[in-house]
């Protein structure tokens, strides 16, 4: 939904600039994995606030449920049992849209206004403009958007843009019982993360750090990780995510190039005709045939 109170920074499939004179504070959600107990309150809150109810599934031999993001599960907890040198860790990560500063979904989206990046950093899907092509999935470096089987629209975490627009924290941050999900300005969140990293280092996590990957221009959902040097331990969080070069080629360079090339061929033909004239059957031949006929 379009939110008057949030300024738009970028709009999918739109080549002109968005209104940009107002100054807005960039927001961020910080997920401190080191204080997350994997209680799934965030999942429940997401369902409640957004009025989505996924199907009652089955157990697949793990704690994860639903097993993956769906059009009706915009966030899921992912549980990884990691045992190294006799020390077991249960790394639990809340997965969902990272709200990239350079969003691959928005870059790939062909439908004008179906994906909006607000000036505060939230990347939101506007389903009324979505055509259901799935290009956002192709574009996303984190494998987040899902197409609904019911309405063929793409869905993902909106960072509760409707709540943020009226000065509220996202539902998941609001309910998180341990405060593992924090919400505020991106600056504040980085400061908070820095303190957490100091604490974690004092507890023997020498490689603790903030996950705010530069490859996508930074994200508006960040993680504090005990093992920031190995994000992939957390059920495949990409170590160095960026928009795939293929997607960049497809929706970047190729777009103007191909358009120009096609136009060039069309114009080239036109000018060829104008300059060289039509290729008509020669008069001699026609006469020749007439003569034959006359015989």
């Amino acid at each position, binding site marked *: 939904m379009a939110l008057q109170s949030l300024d738009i920074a970028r709009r999918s499939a739109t080549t002109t600039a968005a209104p940009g004179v107002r100054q807005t504070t960039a927001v961020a959600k910080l997920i401190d994995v080191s204080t997350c107990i994997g209680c799934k309150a965030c999942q429940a809150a997401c*369902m409640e606030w957004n009025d989505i109810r996924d199907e*009652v599934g089955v157990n697949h031999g793990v704690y994860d449920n639903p097993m993956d993001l769906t059009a009706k*599960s915009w966030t899921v907890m992912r549980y990884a049992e990691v045992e190294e040198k006799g020390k077991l860790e249960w790394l639990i990560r809340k997965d969902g849209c990272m709200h990239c500063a350079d969003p691959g979904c928005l870059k790939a989206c062909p439908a004008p206004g179906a994906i909006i990046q607000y000036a505060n950093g939230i990347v939101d899907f506007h389903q009324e403009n979505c055509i259901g092509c799935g290009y956002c999935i192709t574009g996303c470096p984190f494998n987040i958007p899902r197409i609904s089987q019911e309405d063929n629209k793409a869905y993902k975490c909106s960072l509760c843009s409707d709540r943020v627009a009226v000065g509220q924290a996202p539902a998941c941050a609001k309910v998180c019982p341990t*405060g593992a999900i924090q919400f505020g300005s991106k600056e504040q969140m980085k400061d908070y993360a820095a303190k957490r990293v100091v*604490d974690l280092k004092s507890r023997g996590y020498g490689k603790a750090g903030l996950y705010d990957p530069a490859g996508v221009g930074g994200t508006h959902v960040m993680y504090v990780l005990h093992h920031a040097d190995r994000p992939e331990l957390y059920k495949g969080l990409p170590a160095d995510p960026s928009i795939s070069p293929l997607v960049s080629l497809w929706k970047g360079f190729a777009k103007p190039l191909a358009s120009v090339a096609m136009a060039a061929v069309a114009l080239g033909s036109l000018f060829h005709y104008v300059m060289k004239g039509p290729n008509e059957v020669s008069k001699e031949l026609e006469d020749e045939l007439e003569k034959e006929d006359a015989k």
Partner: protein
Amino acid sequence: MTNHWVDLKNSDLVIVMGGNAAEAHPCGFKWVIEAKKDRKARLIVVDPRFTRSAAVADFYAPIRAGTDIAFLGGVINYLLAKDKIHHEYVKNYTNAAFLIDEGFKFDDGLFSGYNAEKRSYGKDTWKYQMGKDGFAMVDPTLQDPNCVFQLMKKHYSRYTPELVSKTTGTPQDAFLKICEMMAETSAPDKTMTICYALGWTEHSVGSQNIRTMALIQLLLGNMGMAGGGINALRGHANVQGITDMCLYSEVLPGYLSAPTDADVDRKTYLEKRTPKALRPNQMNFPQNFPKWFTSLQKAWYGNAATDKNDYGYDWLPKKDAAYDVLAIFERMHQGKMNGFFCQGFNPLASVANKKKVGDALAKLKFLVVIDPLATDTSEFWKPHGEFNEVDPSKVQTEVFRLPANLFAEETASFTNSGRVIQWHWKAADGPGESKGDIEILAALFLKLKAMYAKDGGKLPEPIMNLTWPYRIPAKPSPAELLMEISGKALGDVFDPKDKTKVIVKAGDQVAGFAQLRDDGSTSCGNWIYSGCWSQAGNLTARRDNSDPSGLGQTLNWGFSWPANRRIIYNRASCDLAGKPWDPKRTVIKWTGTAWGGNDVPDMRPDAAPDENVMPFIMTPEGVARLFAPAMADGPFPEHYEPFETPLDKNPFHPGNPKAASNPAARVFKGDMETFGKAKDFPYVATTYRLVEHFHFWTKHSRINAVLQPDQFVEISEQLAQEKGIATGDKVKVRSNRGFIKAVAVVTKRIKTLDVDGKKVHTVGIPIHWGFKGVTKPGFITNTLTPFVGDANCQTPEYKAFLVNIEKV
């Protein structure tokens, strides 16, 4: 909790053992995280499984289910052997110095006075040596071989790290590491807190599990301190409230022990329950028992209760036998009960040995289920495939379902684990024809009363004389009830020091239990709640979270029993001179003229330190009991194996089969045969909750069902390999009482333990499934559990029993 939820943040070391706070108390666990974040606290988790709490712990150690006393006894031995105790505290604030009867013995697992026939102890030797002055004798040097300290030292000297590790399966280095971390909090300005729950209570040694930790906390000087204490995390939003109101047969509201057949009249009853001080100058607060009890009688019988009729003492039921939940179902199973009211209770799912419970219910004439949900119990008679195999033609019970409101559909009070009573407001009206529980009970009562009035009957007085002063008799309001519980003056109440001065006018609410009287001039439904609704109004509805101390002592938020005190035993947070052990965390202190500070002092406000009034005012000794004769199964906790143990003997008493399992635990006739043996059921099973669900309620809720839809059990990779089970496979788990089928979750988080030279595997069994609800239908976990309980309070042993497992 002796302390409260917010106070967890003041701790330096948090122990989660016998519970899984992150899983079962995620909101309260916030304060553990705060302690870690802001106080650099460390968190230790000891559990058979690497739990969600362990996921955020600094140190985790595995333990075999049912061996906590062995572990903690080992800690006591470590503290005493390494002299890592808070000496001043132990000497002055506990009964360490008290001399015990010379006849007291502990021999090969049994304390003196054991009667094998009755499976109980005679306590003749479990007592103090009494001096000629009528007080207990003490040896302040703690050197007398019969003083508690020396007896305790001797008792726990057997708990060597080797034997602890051999019994618990906890690696010795992990055990010692934990000892070391705990020992650091013996410093006066360091505190440790313990968060436990049903992982300690639901054992045949449940009460003693908790007592062992209490001993540790006393040795370390952590009781009464901010960030210390013994903290039971209660499992329901209001289970603390139900405990306080004592809806059990053993006790009356406010933990007043209930009259039995032996208490022939009020005088006999009161004499037995009103102790004399065991040391000079002590407050001996239970001496006020007659005031609390009389006020309770007045709250029940009003004007009908007079000194002429012992305030209606004869109308009270007198206990002739045990009426705990196991005893009730035992009696029902024997066909000795006609009807059963089941209010907010789903016993088919939550009582041990589902088959026995189902068979018992089938012998009733009627069953009334008062519940917001269509519970499994209400359909115990109905076949639900293999989940509930029953032949309805064999069930004679008539079942009535009375739809009740849910807590969020009522305005009333909750009491949380931290003893804070909080008023809450209705969020929505109940659906359809549902009614509040109060309204349902009022309707039943008025109908009964009308029937007695019309037809008469045997002993009508308890019903006919019950006071019922509510504005709408058919619908007493929760506010009226809370006012009644808090108490009021029926006549003018005078100052005991100045008999002419009226301190409470007739008709006014009392300000607290100090104003209660034993002459019938006050009424109070529960003395410990007294003052929660004073003349100042409903104090439980207060929502002022200002916290001047920064310790989370929000004295104007709700009302904390007793007397709005947030940390009980808080006098023990100061030294003998009244100075806080840790001035940075001052709970109270002696100001020179009175006790004051950041809490309501647990002490007579003007008791100067040199009066030597000791902090534990609820004991006649004035001090805490390291040696506790009140326990049914021994004054010192001792390790006994669960009734179903993977070992053939108790490693502490290998030669004495009588001391294999708790010798004082009650076993009903026929139930000994239902216990399985390790040769048939080689694996240790333990049951527990998951954070996604609340008991057997939320299986009726779509969101919870989405988050954890399907029944599962957890096993180690080693066991899975041995049994050819892959994660996600369907398995059958059998005990000697029945079986369940579930999906196998094969995990690194459960380890095979090395116990007494053998490999012991653990099977973890979450409890939440049943045949009613929107989750995938499942088996009732308590199909598997044994019908035996703790020796003191009969809480069933859900946490340690034996099973076998196979792939289906």
